């Protein structure tokens, strides 16, 4: 990926020099060899900071919201999952397509930084689970594409719901206990929400504690209320980028809940893969006369 870093820098530099965008959002190296982090470049000479390596897991799409009301265009680098996230933001009408310049990448899968720290430099580091399961490694919607427009990673034929099914096979008590064990440790730091591209409400109900809907107290029931509400609020728009789970400081398996809902949406409303088609209608964003309506 080393040489692609150079292409990436050159592309960013050209964009800034030609004034095609005011700023380029990409990645740069963090404090450790296994950490890459978001970089916001607005001077051509600073493009030297940009990198493209197997730790560029951070989904940059959501940052675009910070600049939606600013003058000018912002350019952003996207992997497959980031590109799906960006599509969701466009579908949600949170962004104007003409205000962003999208530079697509072909993603070989990102390495798990937690494992990297554990195993050490030089050892073989496994990919993130979501990357092993990823079916759309290439950017889907872009103005430029960097690298070769071909799949550089093995693609599973289907989404893997085996963990969801394992969970479903438990008894109600077992399910509940698992749920409690996970959400007992939630800090309610909202990192999962704040990093999530599908969590794009202007004002989140969990920031409106005066409304009485939710309380800031940290206890299992409030935490579960948060988890379930968030899962349902992103239903049909969660692209499976896994950022919520990666962001969680106490490693709650948030994706399990997301996948359960993706599976159910597939079953109830027909197969749907969020963010793969920017023109698609959201499964929960409208209704059909054939929709199930068991509780209405």
């Amino acid at each position, binding site marked *: 990926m080393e040489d692609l870093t150079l292409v990436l820098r050159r592309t960013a530099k050209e964009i800034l020099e030609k004034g095609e965008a005011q700023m380029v959002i990409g990645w740069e190296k963090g*404090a450790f060899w296994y950490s890459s982090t*978001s970089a916001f470049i607005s001077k051509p000479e600073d493009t030297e900071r940009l990198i493209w390596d197997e730790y560029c897991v951070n989904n940059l799409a959501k940052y675009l919201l*910070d600049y939606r009301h600013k003058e000018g265009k912002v350019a952003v680098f996207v992997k497959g999952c980031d590109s799906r996230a960006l599509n969701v933001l466009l579908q949600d009408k949170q962004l104007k397509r003409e205000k962003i310049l999208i530079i697509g990448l072909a993603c070989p899968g990102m390495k798990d930084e937690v494992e990297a720290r554990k195993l050490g430099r030089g050892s073989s580091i496994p990919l993130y689970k979501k990357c092993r399961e990823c079916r759309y490694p290439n950017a889907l919607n872009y103005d430029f594409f960097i690298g070769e427009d071909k799949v550089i990673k093995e693609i599973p034929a289907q989404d893997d719901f085996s963990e969801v099914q394992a969970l479903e096979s438990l008894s109600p008590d077992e399910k509940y206990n698992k749920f409690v064990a996970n959400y007992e440790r939630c*800090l309610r730091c*909202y990192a999962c*929400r704040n*990093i999530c591209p599908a969590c794009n409400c202007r004002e989140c109900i969990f920031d409106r504690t005066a409304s009485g809907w939710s309380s*800031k107290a940290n206890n299992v029931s409030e935490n579960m209320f948060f988890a379930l509400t968030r899962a349902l609020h992103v239903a049909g728009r969660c692209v499976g980028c896994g950022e919520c789970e990666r*962001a969680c400081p*106490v490693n709650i398996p948030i994706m399990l809940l997301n996948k359960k809902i993706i599976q159910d949406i597939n079953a109830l409303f027909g197969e749907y893969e969020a963010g793969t088609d920017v023109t698609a209608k959201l499964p929960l964003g409208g209704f059909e006369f054939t929709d199930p309506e068991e509780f209405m």
Partner: protein
Amino acid sequence: MLVAQKAKLREILNALSEEYQVAVPVQREGTSAFELYRDGIEVMFNGNTSISPKGMFFPQTEKMYGFKTVKNTTEFVSLPVEQGKRLLFGVRSCDMKSLDCLDQVFLTKGYIDEFYKQKRERTVIVALGCNEPGETCFCASLGLDPQKAAGADVHAYDLGEVIGFEAVTEAGQKVLDLLKNHLREQQFALPPVGEFYLKPEVAGVPEKLKGMFESPLWEEIARKCLNCGACTYVCPTCHCFDISQDVRGEKGIKYRCWDSCMFGEYTQMAGGHNPRPTKKERVRNRFMHKLNYFPERYNMLLCTGCGRCLDVCPVKMDITSIIQQIKEAK
């Protein structure tokens, strides 16, 4: 030095449990934290806990008092408070330092926070020295001794097969007296402390920050921040709280809970005015508080070098690099 075989730690903790409510660092699902000791629980020796022990003194949610409102009457009821001596085993130097910071906040400047004080006073602390700093640790750069935590009642040392103990305070001596039958005297030299990877140079930073409120650095640094509460919630020194209530009919409980200056709603005022409306102001407040405001007010940094914030930050905001950037800023 008094020593015991590590394999005998269980007996030691069991013996202490007869006198104290004991809490120890443990690995648990997805994270690690201090937990009440139960016979047989495995004490975590490698590295510090992901969740700091501050919650032992300043819980994330803490009930303060009860109340009852019937018609136009209002009654306040004080809640039972847990009593009895507690012992925290395995607190690291950075987290000991954080208690020093929290003591300043909660016990000085005219008002005493009784909730904190009550917990602080009934707790003896056995600190555990670090020989091998974690990858994100930088306490030594802030002048701490990773092996000997200032303020602890007992220093414990990880000496491989054995654990060494040295009493520092009277309360600590009492703890070791209790363990007389479990400890033996033996000469031991402390192993050398391993190399730190992160070495921010903090000298001069608080003073320099005084003139940097309007620096363009803040806007740049803040761009990547998500304004979540992860860094402040895992930080052993962050102490901001909110006060709210849980009401069930006529009865209710007033509680306080951790809050974070990273949240937008934190400083929101009536009429829509917010003195810290964007990421820039919030991020600036966090680092200014840690590196300038707190030193101005209490004469110490509000950072202990525990490295937890840079460990958990989903976008790798790194206080050591920010210290460096402040140093280099024009």
